[in-house]
């Protein structure tokens, strides 16, 4: 896949690690010699606890930091699905979190109007508690191509096979497998650069992150293969 200009929206709850997905994508693209813009938490959808990362990746110089339609849209909670509907177009790669467990949500009122400036502490978010939910898939009438809509139960995979904290890295792997926006190798390098200090201090954590990236990649690759063979 050799698309010229990728517009990517990742949205989710505070504590899901949405911004890190955006940062790693942009950093990886930059390191791979591409043009990239990452911009956190802007746009009308951003209210209360929903965190949005907007990324653009291209071979040529980039224009405005904001855009209207996404080539890749990754809503990671029920609320994020609702608030990013406007970014969907017919050929959007739609990657959603398909676990049956909802991420803890911070209420708008709890967060306050300027709280996006300070990232909500994960513990604060987790303290609110989880509850069951339906997977955050898009409404049936959005007109997406079936092979461009992929659900991944990343929260459940993280809990069962890895650690809850690498949920977002599983999603990152899924994004790469579904869209081909960047190669797995590029993002491995970008991730290690971005998390450099943390991972150097903790080799176990480094392995955990690399496995999470692979796991997300493998899950989606397998799902696409099954879909194609059906």
């Amino acid at each position, binding site marked *: 896949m050799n698309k010229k200009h990728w517009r990517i929206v990742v949205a989710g709850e505070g504590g899901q690690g949405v911004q890190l997905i955006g940062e790693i994508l942009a*950093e990886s693209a*930059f390191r791979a010699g591409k043009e*990239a*813009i990452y*911009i956190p938490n802007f746009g009308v959808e951003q209210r209360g606890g929903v965190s949005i990362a907007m990324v653009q990746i291209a071979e040529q110089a980039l224009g405005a930091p904001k855009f209207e339609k996404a080539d890749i849209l990754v809503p990671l909670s029920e609320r994020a699905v609702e608030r990013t509907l406007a970014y969907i177009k017919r050929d959007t790669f739609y990657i959603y979190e398909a676990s049956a467990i909802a991420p803890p949500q911070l209420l708008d009122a709890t967060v306050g109007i300027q709280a996006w400036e300070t990232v909500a502490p994960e513990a604060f978010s987790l303290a609110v508690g989880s509850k069951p939910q339906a997977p955050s898939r898009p409404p049936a009438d959005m007109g997406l191509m079936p092979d461009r809509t992929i659900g991944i139960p990343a929260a459940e995979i993280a809990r069962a096979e890895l650690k809850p904290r690498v949920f977002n890295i599983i999603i990152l792997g899924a994004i790469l497998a579904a869209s081909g926006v960047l190669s797995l190798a590029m993002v491995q390098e970008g991730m290690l650069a971005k998390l450099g200090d943390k991972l150097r201090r903790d080799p176990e954590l480094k392995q955990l992150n690399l496995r999470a990236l692979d796991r997300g990649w493998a899950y989606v690759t397998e799902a696409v293969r099954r879909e194609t063979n059906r």
Partner: protein
Amino acid sequence: MTNVIEAEQRSFMTGNEVVAWAALAAGAEFMYGYPITPQNEIMHYWTRLAPKFKRGFLQTEDELSAGFATLGGVMAGRKSFCATAGPGNVLMQEPISMAEMMRIPAVWFIQQRGGPSTATVIYSQQETRLTCLGGNGEGNRLVYSTASHQEVFDYAIKAFNNAWNYRFPTFVLGDGYQAKMREAVTLYDPAQRGIELHGTSRMLGRSSKQLDGQQVRHYRNTFNIEEELYETLMQHIADWDHMAEEVVEWAWEGDEEPDLLLVAHGVVSRAVYAAYEHLKSAGYNVAYFRPITLRPFPVAALQRAAGRCRQLLVAESAYGQLLSLVRDSLYGKTCAPIEGLLRPGLGITEELVVEWAQRLLARVG
């Protein structure tokens, strides 16, 4: 002074971080600041970097104090700067007025946020008028409106140099997007690009080394009679006009007799330029104009660009602040209608500009 950037370096960072590096590279010696979003990280990065290069920082009690302390730092002979946004920019107009009256070459970085009042901490272009013409004077200042991280770096160096060269308060006008987003930038040592950094001189405090025998200096901004003030101001205005000819900057591209001339400044010019390219490749007869200095405004250049256009579209994240500068510049020079795509406090996308442009182009088509 320690070399800040040893070798040219391509980096991926936020705009606020770029400002800190640019100020270092430009030879800034002191920052005075007060927290306000979205410029805070300028202070964060500066306070991390400054001690390594023997530069100073003071966090003051408010923006008034930060602004006036910046003037004190400059008067004491140090390249000093300040950064602010929104309501902080409103307060800073007081020290900026004094800088205009006393010709104090202080540099400000403005990261525009939503207004009026506290509004949003996110983004706008609503401080265009304030930054160009705030204070109780004639707007004797120099304002660069940047659109990318590379420009933030380049124009920051230019801002310090031109401030000390022409001795007017000088601004790098950014916004919340430019402050917070990450993109690539090439950091460089100005000397390696052949850019000479302007030297400093003390306005206050005779140093036995430097200024022996120099007369005592008395600076004031109070005048007793109308004529005394008038003469002083007219001298400043003449100096400013002279500077204007030398520093005015703009970008212009496209047909000389376009069906539509697109005009924008700052980060919005990126959306507008992308829209211009899109429209051009779709076969439309369009042109693009971007003032880079907002003060002085590139009046003559805009008149040339607009002289034979059939209509204009001015896009901005404010409600007519750039539009009024454009109208003032073109008064009596064109009969072309001037439309405004005005989105106060809201980002503008390429898609939106294209949509508006196509509607206007259909009108003349």
